C-alpha cells in the first residue's frame, strides 16, 4: 500500500523523524485555514503518488493568503500524469543548505533490507545510480541483528556527508529503520532529506510503501486512503477482497491463482485478444466471491466477453459454477462467457453448468481453446 507524501511524513514523525509541520486540505478554504495556522511563506503540494509533480506545477510556494488561495485553487483538481489531485498538503517553507537522499528497501533478492544514503538528493536517484553509482552508499542489514550504530556511521562516512551531521544522519537512519520495521514498510524513501541553514536535518519528502498483508497489526495505517490513486473498478474489487488490476482491452478475465491468471492474459494476447483486466479470485473462493467478481468485471463497460480459466486446487470447481449461475440469476450478463474448469470437483462443476444451461456460456476443455474461443466471441 503506497502512502501519499504527507501520510508517509506523519508516519515518520511518529517515530521521531523530524519533518516540516503541515496540514492536509481537500478544499481551497481548508488550504487557506491551514496556511493561516502554519504561517507564510508556506508550500502548497499536490498529493499524488507520482514523481515529477513539481515540474508540472504541483508544488508552489505561497507568500501570503492570496497566493495560497490561487495555488490551492489551481492544484486541487489538476491532472498529473493521469491522476486527479484531490488533496494538497500545506507545509511550512524550509530553507535548504543541502539535499541528501536516504532510503530503506525490502530486498527480496538478498533476503534482507537495503539501506541507502547519498549526498546527491533532490533529484532522480535512478539517474544518479546510473551516472555515478559510487555517490550512493549502501549496505544490507541482517534482519536478525537489526540496524546498528555502525551501519549509520558507515553509511554517513561512505556517502561523505558533512562532518557536523555524521551523527544526526546516523540517528535519522536508525529512526527510519525503526519506522520501516515497526510499521512493516516495504519501502521508505526520503528525497530530499535536507540540511537547513541552521544545520538541522529534516525529511522534506517521503515515499512510503506499507505491506498490505501486515495491515491487520496496524489498524491506524489500514485507514489511510489515497482518493486519487484508485480506479473505480479496482476500488470495488478491493472492497470485495479480490485482486483486480484494470487493463486496456475488452476481454474480462477471471482465474484462480496469480500465476495462472497472468498466463491466461499472455495466452489470450497471443491468440490476438486484449484483456480488460487481471482478476485473481484467490484460493478457496466460494460461490459468492465468484458472483461478486463477475459484477466487478462487468462494471467495466468496455468488456465484450469474459473468460473463466479455473484449475482448482484449493478452489473447487463446483463453487465456481455455482457462483456463475448465481451471477446470471442476479445480474443477467449480456456478454458471452467462455468457461474452462479443471481440477478439484471439476466434473461436478461442469455438470452444474450443463444443467443450468446458461445463455451464451461456452464450456471448453483446454486453456488454449478457451483463449481462442473468447477472442473469437469478443469480436
Amino acid at each position: 500500500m503506497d502512502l501519499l507524501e504527507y501520510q508517509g511524513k506523519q508516519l515518520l514523525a511518529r517515530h521521531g523523524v523530524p519533518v516540516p509541520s503541515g496540514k492536509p486540505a481537500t478544499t481551497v478554504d481548508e488550504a487557506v485555514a491551514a496556511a493561516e495556522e502554519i504561517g507564510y511563506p508556506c508550500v502548497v503540494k499536490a498529493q499524488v503518488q507520482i514523481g515529477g509533480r513539481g515540474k508540472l506545477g504541483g508544488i508552489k510556494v505561497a507568500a501570503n493568503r492570496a497566493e495560497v488561495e490561487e495555488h490551492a485553487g489551481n492544484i486541487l483538481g489538476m491532472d498529473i500524469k493521469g491522476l486527479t489531485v484531490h488533496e494538497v498538503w500545506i507545509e511550512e517553507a524550509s530553507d535548504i543548505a543541502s539535499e541528501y537522499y536516504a532510503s530503506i528497501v525490502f530486498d527480496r533478492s538478498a533476503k534482507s533490507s537495503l539501506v541507502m544514503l547519498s549526498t546527491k538528493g533532490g533529484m532522480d536517484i535512478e539517474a544518479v545510480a546510473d551516472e555515478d553509482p559510487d555517490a550512493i552508499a549502501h549496505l544490507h542489514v541482517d534482519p536478525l541483528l537489526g540496524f546498528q550504530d555502525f551501519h549509520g556511521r558507515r553509511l554517513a562516512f561512505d556517502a561523505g556527508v558533512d562532518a557536523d551531521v555524521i551523527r544526526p544522519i546516523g540517528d535519522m537512519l536508525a529512526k527510519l529503520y525503526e519506522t520501516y520495521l515497526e510499521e512493516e514498510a516495504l519501502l521508505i524513501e526520503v528525497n530530499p532529506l535536507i540540511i537547513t541553514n541552521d544545520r538541522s536535518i529534516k525529511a522534506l519528502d517521503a515515499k512510503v510503501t506499507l505491506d498490505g498483508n501486515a495491515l491487520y497489526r496496524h489498524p491506524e495505517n489500514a485507514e489511510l486512503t489515497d482518493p486519487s490513486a484508485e480506479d473505480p473498478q479496482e476500488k470495488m474489487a478491493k472492497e470485495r477482497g479480490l485482486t483486480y488490476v484494470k487493463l486496456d482491452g475488452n476481454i474480462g478475465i477471471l482465474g484462480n491463482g496469480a500465476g495462472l491468471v497472468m498466463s491466461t492474459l499472455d495466452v489470450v494476447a497471443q491468440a490476438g485478444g486484449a484483456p480488460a483486466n487481471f482478476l485473481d479470485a484467490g484460493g478457496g473462493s466460494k460461490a459468492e466471491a465468484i458472483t461478486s467478481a463477475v459484477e466487478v468485471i462487468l462494471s467495466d463497460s468496455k468488456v465484450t466477453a469474459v473468460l473463466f480459466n479455473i484449475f482448482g486446487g484449493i478452489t473447487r470447481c463446483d463453487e465456481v459454477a455455482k457462483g456463475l449461475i448465481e451471477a446470471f440469476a442476479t445480474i443477467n450478463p449480456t456478454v458471452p462467457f467462455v468457461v474452462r474448469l479443471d481440477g478439484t470437483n471439476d466434473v461436478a462443476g461442469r455438470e452444474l453448468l450443463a444443467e443450468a444451461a446458461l445463455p451464451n456460456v461456452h464450456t471448453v476443455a483446454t486453456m488454449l481453446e478457451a483463449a481462442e474461443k473468447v477472442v473469437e466471441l469478443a469480436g
Partner: protein
Amino acid sequence: MSVLVGADTKLVVSGITGREGTFHTLNNQAYGTNVVAGVTPGKGGQNVEGIPVFDTLHKAVEETGANTAMIFVPPRFAADSILEAEDAGIELIIAITEGIPAHDELRVYNHIKANGRSRLIGPNCPGILSPGKANVGIIPASFFREGQVGVVSRSGTLTYQIGNELAQRGFGNSSIVGIGGDPVPGSNFIDILELFENDPQTELIVMSGEIGGDAEEQAAEYIRDHVTKPVIGYIAGFTAPPGKQMGHAGAIVSGSKGTAAAKAEALEACGVRVGRTPTAVADIAAEILGA
C-alpha cells in the same frame, strides 16, 4: 525416487482442525501420504478421522516422530507455526498459508537459514506432490501420475496447468514442487533444481517462473553452471503492465528489471528453452523426451 516428499514422509499438519486444513489433510491421507499427527492448541487429545491431534508441535514430534510439517493456519499465526516446527526439529516445513506479512517471512527465512536444521517450502505455495508416493498440500493429485518430469514453480494453479499439459502428452512427474510466489520464499528455484539434478527418476525439469524479483535470472546461471539435465522454462506475465502488482507479492515489475521478457532472455542465454505458453512447454518436452 522423488524429491522432498515420498514414502519416508511422516506428516504433521499445523491447523488440522480448520475447515481447509481437515479437507486437504484427509485428501493427502487418502492419496497415501503417511499423516501421523495434527496440531491445534487446545485440541490435544482429540483426533481428526483417527489422526491424533496435539497441543504443540513438539509433543506431536515426540509422540509420532513426524519429520515433515504442513502449515495450514491463518496468516497471522503462520510465522509462529513455522518457527515452532523448526524449533521442534522438523526437517521439511511446507507452508501453504497465503498472506503472511513480509517482515515475518524475512525473519523466519533468516532464522531458519542461520540454524540450518530445516528446509522451508513456501509460504503461499500449493505444496509438493510426488505422484504415486505422497502428496503434501493442495495440488489436485488425480491429474498427475508418476513419471520422469520434475516441475518447480512459483505459482500454484499454473503448476497444475503445466502438469496437466504434460499429462495430456503422456508424461508423468517425479515430483511437483510449488515454491510459492511470496517475496521471501523459504526455498528458491536453485534449491529445488539441485534436488532434481540429483534425483535419478527425474530426466527433465520444468521450471515455471513469473514476473518480479530475480529468482529466475539467478536460476538461469545456476542451470548453466550446475545442471546437466534438460530444463524447460516458462514465464508468466508477458502482458503485465509495469508497476502494477498482479496478485502475488512476487508478481510486480519495476522498470525493465524482472519483466517476463528479461527473464525469458536470461534463461535462453543460459541454454534453457522457454515455452511461451503452457502448451508450448509440453511441446518442447515431447521433443526432448521423444513422445
